[in-house]
């Protein structure tokens, strides 16, 4: 196996591990708010790594210029935080309860209130 192939294998493996752990976080963490952290971060880096592997493969092994994968990364980086924002906002409006150890829970009630006139 050549150096490039080792690199691709490593990138794919790292990506897969991070995506898997992101999903593990979704299952394992105790409440809605902490669960949100898995998919917004681990999955972003995992998919970023997979996308990088794909780019290296097409550009250096297949020898064809392929930058399409950059778009996947771009859209992912734009949409992931927005999705998280909408989910957590919806959660707070629906008064989804956080686990007891959560600090500053009163701040959740500040959400959605209009400023005093």
């Amino acid at each position: 196996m050549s150096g490039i192939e080792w690199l691709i294998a490593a990138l794919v493996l790292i990506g897969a591990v991070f995506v898997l752990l992101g999903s593990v976080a979704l299952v394992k963490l105790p409440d809605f708010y902490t669960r949100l952290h898995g998919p917004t971060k681990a999955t972003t880096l995992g998919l970023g790594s997979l996308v990088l592997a794909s780019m290296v493969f097409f550009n250096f092994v297949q020898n064809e210029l392929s930058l399409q994968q950059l778009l996947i990364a771009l859209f992912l980086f734009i949409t992931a935080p927005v999705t998280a924002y909408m989910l957590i906002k919806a959660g707070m409006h629906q008064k989804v309860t956080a686990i007891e150890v959560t600090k500053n829970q009163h701040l959740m009630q500040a959400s959605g209130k209009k400023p005093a006139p």
Partner: protein
Amino acid sequence: MMASWTEKLIPTPARSVMLFVVWLLLNNSLAPVHLVAATILALAIPLITASFRDKHTPFTHWRLALLYLLKVLGDIVLANVQVIRIVLGPNRLLRPGFVMVPLELRGALPLSILACTVSLTPGTVSAEILPYQNDPNEDVGERFLLIHVLDLADEAALMREIKQRYEQPLQEMFGC
């Protein structure tokens, strides 16, 4: 006269360039067909969507923006390693919490960038920008960013880090 004519045809040059590049990337080709289609889209879309756009803070500091992007990318990698460590540890050691960060940053675009950055970096997800307002450019006085933190050890340190690491460069970048 010449300047206003080009301004009317291409109101947002950066957006046009981006549309052009994105279209070529989507097709993964430089064939004449795609070049023509990309040009048409790059010219037409900004004109059609002109009435949906809010006025943004003008933005010129490309070098600062690039540095900011690189810093955030680096932080994303670190953030992931941190989050993974927390996720793999036992649940009873979790110290989640909400934090309200006072903001000096103004303007819809810089605030959205800050909120997205916070969501993508170490153990934090931005939840809301307070107080609530309908018009993003209206001045409502003091602003806060409400964030949820996965592992809240030191509130003051976290606030300081967000303000120094992300808010200040954005303020420099947008001059506000």
